């Protein structure tokens, strides 16, 4: 059969081709895919490509390119075609990866324990003692189940012979498993029928094994904790241990993945400052006080994990964590110090160590690697430099790989000199021509290109041995330099399909029983930081919504009336925009100095229009666009608490600003504002509709109520002091009460009914009384749990004084009593917000200092 798809597919003579065999025929395990793609019209593939791109974008799958720069995110690059592997080949890979994981685990256990490998001379001491990743304080750590390497990833690639080789081991905090899961979600829905018909192995079983195993060992740590600490009760039969995912924070390159995984596995996503150590037990700072942590899945580098015993400059770790692990009171996966095994210098020693430790031959060889610390290896490397790539032997020597073939004669001599003066600092690896796989061409949905690929395979320790994720992250070279595959430098990725001989049922290896008494009805593990973020999420959601509404009203006002009719209400709406920082305060000054006539102090319409457009779009001054960007950052911190739907809406908002053209007009501003309002109202709807009413939700709701309360105070104070004959439509519009008002009164708005609706109507969710009553209710519920009241009283007093206002005597323009009440209420809201932070968020506030002499 001839496939039109393959017309331009470049076969390779020097590389193994994943798709075609040596005679140019498609390999059996690709045939179904090729056939089905070849038959379908081009439009279908085009749709698929768009759907994949849209889903990646909407799910917000990103990779932060520069970990330390705010906001630099690149969308994840995913090729629509999967990478397919047949069952037979996969089982060899699987066996090899399990063997290697066991071997590396045994080496870690030895180095951080009895050190027999060093004492017997099987491991050169410089690989351990000379390695900055060998963390001496972690020697003698108590490892539950004798496992140090819980999660292992290995980068493999295929040589021209068809044989798979190991390129590198990831033993510290392997990344990419979450991206793999997301790739699968996206690609399997792009090919629903094929995915089913080809009997592709599922990934979910791997992740439940991961979760269950961490919980299993977490339970052992829990027992240890309660044995040595009389204050810590043992876990009940069905109670789950507390496992957390420790992240370096939102600016880490793979933060998106971390939050995704935390949400998927159901582990709280925490930062070091969310935890503290008491009596050798790691404690999570939660709303209800300190809760013992049993297992930590970490994505933080070894030495950053503990500023007390490891890197004192780390602000990301937990002071005292190392001691907690030495006592066996907490499981850290992977165990601290496991970075040690990522050194390429170790690769050459693995075959012998495998024989010694496991009594087996190493199944999958490493790419030929020479550690220059051995004299014979050094001479080989010097002689064959052109065919080799030279890498640092230890991570502390930060340097990029050097390709021997890139060096000219002079550079080569210099490099050899460097090599000879410190040979133990270098490893050399053979340059392997790695295999190529089909990638859909960017310009045509009906033609295939070939790019070099590598596969990252994941393994996870369980009480019954290692299990391997049936699939993995296929990484594609960016094209220009097929020698280097890194996501950091712009490579793309693929979903990996491992075919099963028959449909496989995934059942957890670990028995879990939950009895009715163990059912969890409230999220008690919510960290103080998360609660604080939820509170501000609520506030900013409402604030952005109000700002969008205000800007829209202001723009409509501006467009509707010409400058001479604008006079009466204009200063009020404009003043509100200034109060929110959206429009500049003293725009007149410069003009006033040059010309003192009254007219020139007023801005002309064009200038006002520019300011209004700026208020929506400006990047370099306060604007709605910037507020939405901050809201996005805040939401990013809460990523694992937000449902995918929530997240999609938040993404769309930021995207629509990013998509704005060079010089937006006032019409663009209006259309963006309408869009924003819809999105923000949708978000508000999600939090009412879709979120569990736990304390986190209550804080979010309090944030919403306080923000609206403050807005009403400021709005009404200004409205009541504007000129007496003003129109009140805009006031109803800003408080979203226009529909209700018209239904009730069908007349021109007047002060008494308008103020009654905005202040006193308990059925109006935008009214003052509605905000106050809600705040009282939530505060009371929270105080019930945390037994420290006080703040409600201030609000109850506000409620009484509001209810005791006589509408006939006070609800009119310019009333002093009402103005005074509004000011008092505004001040009270500021106090309540401060008190909330003191009571509940204080844990997250303090600055950490280190000392040393």
């Amino acid at each position, binding site marked *: 059969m001839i496939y039109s798809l393959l017309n331009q597919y470049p076969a390779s003579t020097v590389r193994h081709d994943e798709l075609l065999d040596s005679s140019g025929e498609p390999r059996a395990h690709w045939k179904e895919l090729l056939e089905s793609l070849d038959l379908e019209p081009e439009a279908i593939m085009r749709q698929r490509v768009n759907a994949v791109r849209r889903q990646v974008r909407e799910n917000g799958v990103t990779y932060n390119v520069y970990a330390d720069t705010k906001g630099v995110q690149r969308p994840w690059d995913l090729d629509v075609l999967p990478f397919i592997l047949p069952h037979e080949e996969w089982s060899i890979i699987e066996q090899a990866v399990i063997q290697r994981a066991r071997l590396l685990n045994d080496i870690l256990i030895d180095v951080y324990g009895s050190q027999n490998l060093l004492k017997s001379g099987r491991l*050169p001491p*410089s690989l351990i003692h000379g390695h900055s990743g060998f963390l001496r304080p972690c020697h003698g750590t108590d490892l539950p189940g004798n496992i140090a390497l819980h999660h292992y990833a290995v980068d493999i690639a295929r040589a021209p012979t068809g044989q798979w080789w190991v390129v590198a081991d990831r033993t510290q905090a392997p990344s990419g498993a979450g991206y793999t899961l997301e790739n699968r979600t996206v690609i399997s829905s792009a090919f629903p029928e094929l995915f089913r018909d080809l009997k592709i192995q599922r990934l979910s079983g791997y992740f439940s094994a991961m979760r269950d195993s961490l919980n299993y060992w977490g339970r052992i740590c829990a027992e240890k904790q309660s044995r040595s600490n009389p204050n810590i009760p043992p876990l009940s039969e069905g109670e789950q241990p507390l496992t957390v995912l420790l992240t370096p924070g939102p600016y880490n390159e793979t933060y998106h993945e971390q939050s995704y995984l935390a949400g998927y596995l159901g582990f709280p996503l925490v930062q070091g400052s969310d935890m503290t*150590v*008491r009596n050798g037990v790691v404690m999570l700072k939660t709303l209800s006080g300190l809760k013992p942590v049993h297992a930590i899945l970490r994505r933080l580098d070894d030495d950053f994990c503990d500023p007390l*015993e490891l890197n004192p400059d780390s602000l990301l770790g937990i002071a005292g964590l190392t001691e907690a692990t030495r006592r066996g009171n907490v499981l850290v996966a992977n165990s601290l110090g496991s970075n040690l095994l990522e050194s390429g210098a170790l690769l050459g020693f693995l075959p012998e160590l495998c024989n010694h430790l496991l009594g087996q031959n190493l199944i999958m060889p490493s790419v030929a690697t020479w550690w220059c610390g051995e004299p014979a290896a050094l001479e080989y490397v010097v002689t064959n430099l052109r065919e080799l790539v030279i890498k640092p032997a230890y991570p502390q020597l930060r340097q990029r790989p050097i390709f021997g073939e890139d060096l000219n004669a002079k550079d080569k001599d210099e490099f050899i000199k460097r090599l000879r003066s410190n040979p133990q600092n270098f490893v050399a690896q053979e340059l392997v021509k790695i295999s190529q796989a089909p990638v859909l061409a960017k310009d045509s949905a009906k033609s295939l290109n070939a790019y070099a690929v590598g596969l990252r395979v994941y393994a996870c320790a369980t009480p019954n041995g290692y299990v391997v994720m049936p699939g993995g992250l296929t990484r594609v070279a960016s094209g220009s330099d097929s020698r280097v595959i890194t996501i950091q430098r712009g490579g793309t990725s693929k979903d990996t399909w491992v075919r099963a001989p028959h449909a496989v049922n995934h059942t957890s290896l670990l028995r879990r029983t939950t009895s009715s008494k163990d059912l969890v009805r409230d999220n008690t593990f919510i960290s103080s930081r998360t609660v604080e973020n939820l509170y501000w999420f609520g506030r900013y959601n409402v604030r952005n919504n109000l700002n969008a509404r205000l800007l829209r009203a202001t723009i409509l006002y501006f467009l509707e009336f010409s400058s001479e009719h604008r006079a009466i209400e204009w200063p009020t709406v404009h003043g509100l925009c200034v109060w929110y920082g959206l429009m500049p305060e003293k725009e007149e000054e410069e003009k006033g100095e040059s010309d003192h006539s009254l007219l020139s102090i007023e801005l002309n319409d064009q200038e006002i229009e520019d300011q209004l457009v700026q208020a929506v779009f400006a990047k370099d001054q306060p604007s709605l666009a910037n507020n939405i960007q901050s809201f996005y950052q805040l939401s990013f911190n809460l990523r694992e608490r937000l449902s995918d739907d929530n997240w999609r809406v938040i993404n769309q908002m930021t995207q629509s600003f990013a998509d704005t053209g060079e010089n937006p007009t006032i019409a663009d501003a209006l259309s963006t504002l309408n869009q924003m309002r819809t999105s923000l109202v949708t978000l508000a709807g999600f939090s009412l509709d879709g979120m569990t009413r736990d304390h986190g939700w209550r804080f979010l709701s309090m944030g919403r109520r306080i923000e609206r309360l403050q807005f009403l105070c400021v709005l009404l104070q200004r409205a009541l002091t504007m000129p007496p004959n003003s129109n009140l439509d805009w006031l109803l519009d800003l408080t979203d009460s226009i529909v209700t008002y018209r239904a009730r009164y069908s007349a021109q708005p007047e002060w008494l009914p308008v103020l009654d609706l905005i202040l006193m109507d308990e059925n109006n969710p935008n009214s003052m009384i509605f905000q106050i009553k809600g705040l009282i209710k939530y505060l009371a519920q929270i105080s019930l749990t945390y037994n420290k009241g006080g703040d409600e009283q201030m609000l109850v007093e506000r409620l009484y004084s509001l209810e005791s206002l006589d509408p006939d005597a006070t609800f009119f323009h310019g009333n002093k009593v009402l103005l005074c009440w509004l000011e008092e209420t505004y001040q009270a809201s500021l106090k309540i917000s401060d008190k909330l932070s003191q009571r509940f968020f204080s844990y997250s506030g303090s600055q950490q*200092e*280190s000392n*040393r002499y």
Partner: protein
Amino acid sequence: MRYHITHETHYSYDSVATLSQQLLFMSPRNFESQICLDHQIDVTPVPNESANNLDYFGNISHYFSIFTPHQDLIVRVESTVDLFPRPSLQSLEHSTPWEIVRDRLNLHNGIYNDAVAYLYPSPKILCSDALADYARPSFSNGRGIVEAAFDLTQRIYREFEFDSEATNVSTPLSEVLEGRRGVCQDFAHLMIGCLRSMGLACRYVSGYILTIPLEGHEKLIGADASHAWVSVYCHKFGWIDFDPTNNCLVQNDHITVAWGRDFSDVSPMRGVVLGGGAQTLKVSVTVTPIWSNELSVQLSL
């Protein structure tokens, strides 16, 4: 020889510290040249928890944490130690040629496992050609390792100036070598860097020296605070201590607290404080000789 040591550390904070976690290396360790008879650590405010540990190098660490708000942290450590005579320079004659020691250490056969732990660069001491170049004049062909190391000790003493203003805890070694000035810690790091760059094993020793000079002796430098010197692996003689700050082979006026690869392994006090703001630190050390031979005789029986 018996000594009593008082080591007081006082941190004052500008604002209230709400949590303090500290790790001390202030407990003198026991080994063939020294025994610690009495040791006490008093912390104000009283810690909420504390624990002793042995670290990777066999040093005694003391951990404590304080949850009660405080603005002053005072750590007072008192120790009584007996020192036993160490070999004199004469008895160390005919030491192994340094090249042989170097080659043995680099054999990777597991026999010198104890020494190779101190053979490689460490956080504060990176090896370099410049350090090896500085060391080389002391390491002529076939010279005994003790003789060579003592020569290096003397050269550092002669060619570097003691200057407590020139450096701080984070001054890199290359700068010390360049500027030719520093304090005891810098000279120890420098000498270790030289030896390791020559392929020899060397450790950093933290401790104290006599505050009040013995009759007829000059007051030793570095006596008012913690002191630091080096210990060189000398093959058949084991570990031999040299003090480049005081131009001497260590005899019986150096009290050892802890040893490691460099300062970062054994800094006397390190910790993490929540809150507190700016901090000021006062340290005082007093070492007093006690002339009671009777007691030590009883103990040695």
